[in-house]
């Protein structure tokens, strides 16, 4: 049997157009727009980091990306298919092609780690032996194989996020959405999570959109690569950055920046400069 986490590589390489595309998306909830005329895209193999202060609409944007929130206007397309306006029954199979890591992990409290990670596989009635094998591989990827039979309540915050990453990866996602995966964690645990995300980016090359308000995480992702021989994240040579990792910045519901790390640090935009400082 192929390793369960191998498939995204193939799918990412097969894709040609944008994996995710926002065109003039506006979202509001009984008030002024939370997202206002947002347009950007995520290319195959690309990792986009969405920066912005807390409460600016980053999580709403991420939920709009896989149809959990429907826009008032504009369109969202995943893997070449427009999902805006689709009924829930048609959105569900589309969502199954993406993996999403929620802010606090959003693990199901009443299920053990094994059933949490294998949730989609259980719904699809995959054989128990295959489920166990794939869960072990996914948990090994995040370094938590020993938590197989534990319940989420007995895990620390960082472990919950890592289990959530394993759950997002097990179903061969063609697009990964991370909602503040390091929010509220200590620096050491945050680095562990970022290392996992860099590993996923460099080893499996799954395109992703990562939301964060922590600049240090974003810069670490840009300035490091995953070394498979050392099985660890290592810094890139001085002056080099990962070309596939680019930035977006959101403020007051508008996208105020879209570009590379170099463009970001040299931006003339007043808010961008203030945010970086």
């Amino acid at each position, binding site marked *: 049997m192929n390793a369960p986490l191998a498939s995204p590589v193939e799918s990412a390489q097969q894709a040609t157009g944008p994996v995710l595309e926002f065109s003039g998306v506006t979202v509001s909830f009984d008030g002024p727009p939370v997202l206002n005329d947002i347009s950007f895209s995520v290319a195959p193999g690309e990792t986009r980091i969405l920066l912005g202060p807390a409460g600016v609409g980053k999580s709403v944007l991420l*939920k709009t990306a*896989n149809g*959990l929130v429907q826009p008032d206007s504009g369109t969202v397309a995943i893997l070449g298919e427009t999902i805006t306006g689709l009924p*829930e*029954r048609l959105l*569900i*199979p589309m*969502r*199954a092609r*993406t993996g*999403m890591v*929620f*802010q*606090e992990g*959003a*693990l*199901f*409290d009443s299920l053990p780690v094994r059933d949490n990670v294998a*949730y*989609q596989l259980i*719904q699809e009635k995959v054989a128990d032996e295959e489920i166990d094998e794939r869960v072990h591989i996914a948990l090994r990827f995040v370094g938590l194989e020993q938590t197989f039979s534990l319940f989420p309540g007995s895990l620390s915050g960082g472990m919950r996020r890592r289990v959530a990453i394993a*759950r997002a990866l097990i*179903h061969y996602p063609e697009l990964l959405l991370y909602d503040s995966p390091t929010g509220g964690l200590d620096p050491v645990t945050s680095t562990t999570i970022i290392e996992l995300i860099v590993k996923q980016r460099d080893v499996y090359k799954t395109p992703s959109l990562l939301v964060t308000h922590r600049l240090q995480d974003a810069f670490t992702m840009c300035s490091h690569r995953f070394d498979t021989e050392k099985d660890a994240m290592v810094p890139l040579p001085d002056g080099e950055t990962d070309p596939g990792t680019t930035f977006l910045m959101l403020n007051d519901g508008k996208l105020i920046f879209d570009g590379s790390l170099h463009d970001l640090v040299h931006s003339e935009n007043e808010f961008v400069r203030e945010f970086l400082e």
Partner: protein
Amino acid sequence: MGIEAIDRAAKNFVLTVQEYSLFAARAALNLFSAPVYWSDIIVQCDIIGVGSTLIVVFAGFFTGGVLAVQSAATLASFGATAVTGRFVAMSMIRELGAVLTGIMVSGRNASSMASELGSMVVTEQIDAMRALGVDPMRKLVTPRIFATVVMLFFLTILSDFCGILGGAAVTVFMNGQNGTQYFSMAYEYLRYPDILQGLIKPIFFGFIIASIGCFYGMRTTGGTQGVGQSTIKSVVFASVLIIFVDLLVSLTMVSLF
């Protein structure tokens, strides 16, 4: 200012009724298309039905006993204590068995559904479920509604039975009347429309309990405080709606038979 507040409250009420109607209809229709989560239905039958058995048995038994005590005292002034069995059986089967069981199960299960689903909403577990390609309406709501309707039907029969037994215990051991006479009167005057009325009601009540509990759970906002609010609303609205629907069903059944 006052008119505006009334206008806003009225619009909110109509909107809530509309959302509830759509929610309940969708949950019910999910039973007729795949996937139907039968294993979740069985688990819910166990939680709702088996888990509520004890409170229903006790509530039914004591209600039957109280009915016998009160009716015997009143009937004695007409020299008609012999019909205590008929009075208790009719009251339990036509009315009290279904309503009391509905309210007991509502207090136990509508609140638990609202708090469980509400907690899942505020901790993003519902969103996670949707993101994992599973429809929470099919996975969480439809099984609870189907299981409550089925189990409340049987719990009501159990409550009726225990109520008649409770009435018999008071009649025989406290009022010193003849047990055979009690059961004979309880059985002799019972008609099929009485039984039909008592068994149609729990179907409506079961649907109300689960759909209201799930509805308020799924629209929870505002963190843990919101979960508490949803729980209170679900029990209050389910209990009031049970009594209101009981009146409507009783009026309809009485006019039909």
